[in-house]
């Protein structure tokens, strides 16, 4: 076996996988650069680097044992003793266990295990407990990173062999849309910015899951683009919220308000990041949502209506959070930010970079779309039943 053959067996460096890996590295770097130091307890940086590397290498890995190891590692990095081990079992071990049992056990069991593993790893509502709990630990930046770059989307190419999964597509896609709807509704009533971002993330996870399970090139490409577009938008928003928390000591909306007076750059960039994350025209998320809604239409028009409602509710939730935190008469006196404590240069650079990436890719999406479309076609061909369709 030559080195080249071995390399080809172990690694997959197709454009979309490479984009995924590069995105993981960039997101890690942006987080290291721009996350406020007050929100990075000792050890968090090392965990962040390790998680970023494992996700990046995982995106380029085609060899299942290595993929399984890199699947588990990031989840161990967000785990803290207070969370309890039980909640991590399915997200960490569901998909690797399905790969292990592939061909040995009954196909139905491996399929169910695989789907549950995907649902929990992507933190699709209501399989999101571990991730929401991780958001309230000192490892918050790592939790965001682990969610932001989904190896789960690429893992769908490693579907366990067995029965025709396309028969399950309508039910799984519907599950994803319902989950996204619930999370969007939840985002609308949150009184705390971290939880609001968490719910937006869950809503995106639901949409991505539905799009992947539609098993068609349009929806699949949309899911991969959503992973990039929405995730980078949410990263920019999370950097803004981390900056708010570092300055005011709170992320509770009732205690905030009027930040535009003392932090005008934060208010402006948070609005732009929100617009990008909510999928307004000109952002990558707009292109991604357009593809997802057309893709799921092929399963049932009602699913497209669900996607439309989700995107509409998410836009409302993002603006509500921004308006309550940054506009209006002002915060409670205890949470007042003195002048001169606006975003620092490195924070500005981090959020600005995210916004620029989304804008450029949103205005000139053809390369991103084509790269993802090729990967989706290759992934779908590997899924039992899809190639024969």
């Amino acid at each position: 076996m030559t080195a080249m053959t071995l390399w080809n067996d172990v690694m997959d460096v197709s454009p979309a996988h490479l984009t995924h890996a590069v995105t993981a590295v960039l997101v890690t770097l942006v987080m290291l650069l721009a996350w406020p130091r007050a929100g990075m307890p000792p050890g968090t940086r090392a965990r962040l680097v390790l998680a970023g590397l494992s996700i990046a290498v995982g995106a380029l890995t085609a060899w299942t044992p290595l993929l399984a190891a890199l699947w588990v590692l990031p989840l161990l990095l967000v785990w803290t003793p207070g969370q309890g081990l039980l909640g991590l079992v399915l997200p960490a071990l569901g998909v690797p266990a399905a790969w292990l049992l592939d061909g040995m056990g009954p196909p139905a069991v491996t399929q169910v295990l695989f789907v549950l593993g995907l649902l929990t790893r992507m933190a699709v509502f209501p399989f999101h407990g571990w991730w929401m709990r991780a958001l309230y630990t000192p490892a918050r930046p790592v939790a965001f990173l682990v969610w932001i770059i989904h190896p789960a989307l690429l893992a769908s190419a490693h579907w366990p062999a067995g029965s025709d999964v396309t028969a399950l597509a309508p039910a799984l896609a519907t599950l994803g849309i319902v989950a996204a709807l619930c999370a969007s509704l939840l985002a609308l009533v949150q009184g705390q910015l971290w939880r609001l971002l968490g719910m937006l993330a869950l809503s995106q996870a639901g949409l991505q899951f539905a799009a992947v399970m539609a098993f068609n090139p349009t929806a699949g490409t949309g899911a991969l683009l959503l992973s990039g577009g929405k995730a980078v938008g949410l990263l920019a928003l999370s950097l803004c919220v981390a900056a708010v928390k570092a300055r005011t000591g709170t992320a509770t909306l009732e205690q905030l308000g009027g930040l535009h007076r003392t932090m005008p750059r934060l208010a402006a960039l948070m609005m732009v990041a929100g617009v990008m994350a909510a999928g307004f025209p000109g952002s990558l998320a707009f292109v991604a949502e357009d593809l997802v809604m057309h893709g799921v239409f092929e399963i049932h028009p009602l699913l497209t209506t669900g996607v439309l409602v989700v995107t509409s509710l998410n836009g409302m939730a993002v603006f509500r959070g921004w308006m309550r935190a940054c506009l209006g008469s002002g915060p409670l006196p205890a949470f007042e930010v003195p002048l001169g404590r606006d975003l620092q240069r490195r924070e500005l650079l981090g959020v600005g970079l995210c916004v620029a990436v989304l804008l450029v890719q949103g205005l000139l999406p053809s390369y991103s779309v084509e790269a993802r479309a090729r990967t989706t076609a290759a992934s779908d061909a590997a899924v039992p039943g899809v190639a024969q369709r």
Partner: protein
Amino acid sequence: MTAADVAELLPPWLDLVPAGLHGLVTVATMVAGFRKVTPERALVSLSLVMSVAALLVTVVLGARVEVLGPARLDLGNWFHVGEYHFPLIFLLDAQGVVTMLLGCGVVAIAARFTATYLHKDPGFARFLGLVHLAAAAHLTVATGGTLDIIFMGWELLGLASVLLVAFFQDRDAPVRNAFRALVTYRACDIGLLMAAVLVHFSHASPDISVAMPALAGSPESAMIGVGLILAACGKSAQVPVGGWLPRAMEGPTPSSALFYGALSIHAGVLLLLRSFPLLEPHEVLRTVVVLVGLLTALVGTVSGQAAADNKNALAYAAMAQAGLMVAEVGLGWTTLALVHMVGHAMLRMGQFLRAPSALHDAHVIHSGAGGHLPPTQGLLGALPQSAQLALYRLSLTEFHLDGFLQRVVVGPTLRLARLLDRLDRALTRQPADPQG
């Protein structure tokens, strides 16, 4: 050389130049906004030069349409996956030219007015940037050749509108009202996007000049029509979702004049005019359009009688006129609706811009007339006292439409969301309000 020869020499991409010029001003103001001192004079000069240039280019485009007829600009696909593609098609016909001329004209007036009205305001650059963003978005709606392109302009127009309602961002009321407008826009825009998806899956050409007549009478036409009507109702403040319009008056006067006197309020009418070939054979949909328009005209007229301030009264008047235009489209009087739109936009914009001087104007009129003018009662004055009182009560509550929506849509949605939240916190073992 004939006029046709000259017109044919014009490059096809000229259609996009007016929107591009306004877009450039938006970018320039955004950059200027990050500086400590706003270069106000330079921004005003840039804004006026670009607005006039856009107007002149539009006049040239109008002359080309007059000589050569409607023009179609196909820039290929923005992106595509398999059989799905997002085509960049722009269409310039008489309707589009009239709308563009209106947009470019009123933006130039609003920009000049702003130079004095918001002089030395800390948000000067932001205001000017949003006005030009709205202009670019309006021109995109006017020239959009597919529902997808129209949607892009439509969303950006809504975004600019919301941010301008919240312009005085130190106060809570404008921010609250801006959010209210945003919620209405986002909810109603679902209709436009749904219509765009349905047009795509109907396998008709995405070009609206082809798709709308081709889809008329098809099984999908009813759903597409309902979506378009919903979107038009949101943007043109029609019954039952028009309650945001009076609240949007919290924005600065030039933005109220521009959006709710001239551009945004007529976007829904323009959308219905564009989609009229689809609605034309559909008696039920047209009846719905007429009823919605007439009901809005009634609600706007009566509610305006009880408005306590000048801008609110103008907002209700604009709502009533937009209702009449919608009814005109439903009745098939499309040319009248277009003429009505232009006339109303110019008149209402002038009235909005004069609104801050209303007291001064009243004093001038009174001194010219030699005393107070006799009260005008109109048709409502001829009604019996009890009917007048009932109408007064209804006008104060805007015919209970907001309360109805609150009870039927907003309330249940929020209750469901809160119930889900309680369940989620219990299941994921999260405290009621975790400090993050």
